[in-house]
């Protein structure tokens, strides 16, 4: 017989792996991808393909020629970033801008810190916010979704504002929330995805289906979504009760903009969020409050990306401050 293998316990390993988790996230995003292609046609397909290919390419090049480490593009994480970046931009975004976004996401957002697991910020959001600040016009001209599947012209699509954009602009001009609601798609349309916006954010239903899949597969846990949604609902609810003319109701906040996308697919990103249950709750709470502050009082109509990135920066501090409860921890008697 050959030599015996000797190693420390445990001698068996569970069936999770980085690859399974990452591809699980990709599968969860399939419904939202399909909806985006349904509403935005070939434009969406083009954005998805370019974004994914560019992210994979940049990761491969950097890993091979700069880091000179083992190939990592098949672990699925660059694929996740690719899809998420595509989800965060309008379907008519010029290709060259998208490629810059992919470069910033993978190059600056992820690989410069040492690759998967080392990045303090969500890579796709780093790319998205970079583009939003650098190319504000291209990043906020939203094609109006088509109701029927069709080959949409790539260059001369009709563009229009997002519901959150209508709201912010309208309020500035002194209109009331009630007046503005008449200019918007119905809640049902918004739930299905028939609203202006970036690829992945329009259909709450598709995002929820994917999220349920991730819950079942235990890829994401309840803490961040509950704290994030909870704080948004409570905060906007209070404002709405104070003055429904000036502040829109919580339901509107839930189904519009990038909230669903942000909560389920980006604020739950393992790498850039806190580790413990308590830490995740604090993280979600902070994201919710910041999102509402930016949406209601900030310069941008939408605040999800900024909120998550800001809270990403706090993750190490939260990790230090909010430890899991130790077993047998001495209870201090009052």
């Amino acid at each position: 017989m050959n030599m015996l293998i000797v190693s420390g316990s445990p001698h068996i390993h569970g069936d999770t792996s980085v690859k399974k988790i990452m591809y699980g996230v990709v599968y969860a995003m399939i419904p939202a991808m399909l909806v985006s292609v349904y509403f935005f046609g070939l434009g969406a397909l083009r954005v998805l393909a370019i974004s994914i290919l560019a992210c994979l390419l940049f990761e491969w090049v950097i890993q091979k020629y700069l880091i000179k480490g083992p190939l990592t593009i098949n672990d699925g994480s660059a694929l996740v970033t690719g899809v998420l970046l595509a989800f965060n931009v309008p379907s008519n975004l010029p290709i060259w801008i998208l490629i810059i976004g992919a470069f910033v996401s993978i190059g600056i957002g992820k690989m410069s810190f040492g690759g998967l697991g080392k990045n303090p910020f969500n890579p796709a959001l780093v790319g998205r916010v970079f583009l939003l600040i650098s190319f504000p016009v291209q990043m906020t001209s939203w094609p109006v979704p088509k109701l029927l599947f069709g080959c949409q012209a790539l260059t001369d699509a009709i563009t229009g504002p997002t519901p959150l954009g209508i709201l912010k602009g309208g309020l500035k001009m002194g209109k009331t929330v009630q007046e503005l609601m008449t200019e918007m798609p119905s809640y049902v349309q918004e739930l299905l995805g028939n609203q202006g916006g970036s690829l992945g954010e329009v259909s709450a239903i598709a995002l929820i289906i994917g999220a349920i899949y991730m819950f079942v597969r235990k890829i994401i846990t309840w803490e961040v979504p509950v704290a994030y949604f909870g704080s948004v609902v409570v905060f906007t609810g209070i404002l709405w009760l104070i003055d429904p003319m000036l502040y829109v109701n919580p339901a509107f906040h839930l189904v519009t903009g990038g909230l669903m996308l942000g909560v389920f697919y980006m604020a739950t990103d393992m790498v850039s969020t806190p580790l413990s249950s308590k830490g995740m709750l604090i993280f979600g709470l902070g994201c919710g409050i910041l999102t509402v502050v930016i949406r209601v009082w900030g310069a941008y109509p939408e605040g999800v990306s900024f909120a998550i990135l800001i809270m990403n920066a706090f993750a190490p501090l939260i990790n230090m401050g909010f430890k899991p409860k130790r077993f047998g921890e001495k209870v201090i008697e009052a």
Partner: protein
Amino acid sequence: MSILKTFKPGGVNPAENKLSANRPIEILNPPGQAFIPINQNLGAPAIPLVQKGDEVKVGQLIARGEAFISSNVHSSVSGKVLKIDNVVDPSGYKRPTIVINVEGDEWVPGIDRSSEIKKLVTLSQKEIIEKIKEMGIVGLGGAAFPSHVKLMVPDGKKAEFLLINGVECEPFLTSDHRLMLEKGEEILIGTSILMKGLGVDKAIIGIENNKPDAIDHLSGLAENYDGIKVQPLKVKYPQGGEKQLIKAIINREVPSGKLPIEVEAVVHNVGTAYAVYEAIQKNKPLIERVVTVTGRYLSKPSNFLARIGTPISDLFEKASGLPENTGKIIGGGPMMGKALISTETPVVKGTSGILLFSEEEASRVPVKNCIRCGRCIKVCPMGLEPVLLAQLSEREMYTQAELENVMDCIECGSCHYTCPSGRPLLDYIRLGKSKVGQIIRNRGKK
């Protein structure tokens, strides 16, 4: 059936693989040569009482446990002492071992080898503790802590519950399961002896729900015993950990760094209860134990009643031979067991099973970057942060590791088991524990 209880936080559910669950305990003949280490317990080694050339009988005391935490060792065979030499034991180190050439099977007089069940317990509390010590009984769940020490409640403390561990949460192992099915009455008598020794009137036997036959069997028998009841538990590893079992059954948390007696509980294994029965009622020292021999490639996974000191190669032979592709031999279960370095390693008091893995099963998954998913924290039954402890140990930041309660780690391996990046978290934490342990001991000396 009452509601299933379990512990929290943490825990994992590895595939059970109880391949030998339906195989009755087979009695294994004494080996040709027995290797009996003088240190089979947690604590100090025993002092040998025999020399080269001495004739010994089965059940004869051959090494005495002198220290407070130590345990007597008896000969499990009859024959002539060949030598006292350093032999590789399950720890992987060469340690002093009494090697006996076996001749016949002659027992010392006074040991009752019949299968007649003796219910009446005549010994007093003090006599019980003394006898358990004399008979060399140690915890048979794996840790091999001298059992009599656990019965001696320190001054100022008191015990309320005796908990009997029939959990057997390690995958593959079935020795406790078989024992509960085949020696149920004896286990209950042993339990009532332990109750008397400890001075408590309540005992609870915890059994996981994947052994419904054992739960039914012992529950039925327990009706005839005052104060003993069976508590079914939800399957979750590491429920057989002492602190986890106490949490699961009576919902008390043993404080960090303290013993179970702090929450007025004492835990013994079902195997120990059986050994106690044999020691007290049958005058039989701990010279044999049930060992599960198992593995996916073994054609006949089995449960053997083997003499202490039997080389494990004897067990493979009886279980239809060591598979060709064997890559790793584990003493104990796959989660906490130790990889053995030799097929001639002897069975010791703490050997609950021998598990054979093929080379493929034995190889670890490749290590990737930590993705900070926090799964290790979620599954840690001690509420620790394995990812942090492993990092601190890796970077030799031992002071910090101590502050993060590294010494609370029970080495259950749930963190490494569950890590999607396959990081050897427990390897690092073990290293950190040993360094921090050194630091703490040195501090005590000053």
